[in-house]
């Protein structure tokens, strides 16, 4: 096995893991969205169609693990868990960027999707048992999802979630696959 001083680049593994993670989480999100649109607004905070995603729970956390496995498999190296965490963090960042890009491409393919989801959510809010004032306030909160500010905010929140869970899965990946023990 190669030592840490002469280790090869990990970018291939990071980019591959980021892409796979982004495709999976975006696909689950889009399929969940279309299933939501195919259901009646029930007045619940979340659509029962999201149950589909039960199988996808935490799938976004596997990127860090996969990147470490792929890097070790391709290069036959060992390293400390700090590097595994770094790989996981970069997978979280990469997956966020790719998922924003895929979502924007989907907006071109189906321009009415986001608007239909907002419309569904407004109807859902109207079906809720809540004071009219609170309902109006919530409906007013639906900004244009394609504005730069909202895309940036959504990307930030996605990165916080994907970043932290992939750091943890990166630590586990390094411990299991790259440990010298």
């Amino acid at each position, binding site marked *: 096995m190669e030592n840490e001083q002469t280790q090869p680049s990990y970018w291939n593994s990071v980019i591959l893991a980021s892409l796979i993670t982004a495709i999976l989480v975006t696909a689950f999100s889009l399929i969940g969205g279309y299933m939501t649109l195919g259901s009646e607004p029930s007045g619940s905070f979340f659509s029962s169609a999201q149950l589909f995603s039960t199988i996808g*729970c*935490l799938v976004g956390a596997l990127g860090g693990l996969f990147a470490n496995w792929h890097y070790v498999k391709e290069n036959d190296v060992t390293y400390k868990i700090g590097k595994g965490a770094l790989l996981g963090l970069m997978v979280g960042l990469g997956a966020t960027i790719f998922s924003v890009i895929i979502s924007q491409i989907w907006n071109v393919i189906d321009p009415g999707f986001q608007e239909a989801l907002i419309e569904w959510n407004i109807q859902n809010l109207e079906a809720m048992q809540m004071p009219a004032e609170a309902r109006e306030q919530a409906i007013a909160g639906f900004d244009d999802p394609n504005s730069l500010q909202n895309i940036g*905010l959504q990307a930030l929140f996605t990165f916080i979630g994907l970043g932290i869970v992939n750091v943890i899965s990166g630590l586990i990946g390094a*411990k299991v696959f790259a440990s010298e*023990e």
Partner: protein
Amino acid sequence: MQLQAHNKALYLSVLTGAGFLFLAALGPGLLGVKAPESFGSWQYQIFELLCHQDPARSFNITGVQMAVCSRCISIYGFFFFGMVSMPVFARFKPSLQKEEINWLIAAILLNLADVIGNYFGIWSNTHISRFLLGGAFGITLALILTNEFFTLNKSE
């Protein structure tokens, strides 16, 4: 025998991240936000791509749904608890990496079996069963990392 800490900066970073994730996963109800205003809260957005957030499978705080399901809140909670308790774990366990990996695999298989059994109608899982199985997974994740951050120095 004396407890020795390693990778301190990394440990503190992961501990902080795990703590933040756990608190965020508890949802807007933790901050006293009422149900109507909680719609679209940042806590829900953080976990939007990580958890199905199904209301029927989630706990509530003051009537406001948590940001993740009962299995996920247990994973985050027990992982954070495991991170906090690492110095204690290290005092009680020698380096048994293979054993820990087997525990982790067992926890993953148990959770998978629970999801699949429930999906095909073989049994119906509950908040509590999902919480316990998620917790087993979360704690084994922390256990497997213990020796990377804390070990017992036997020479002293």
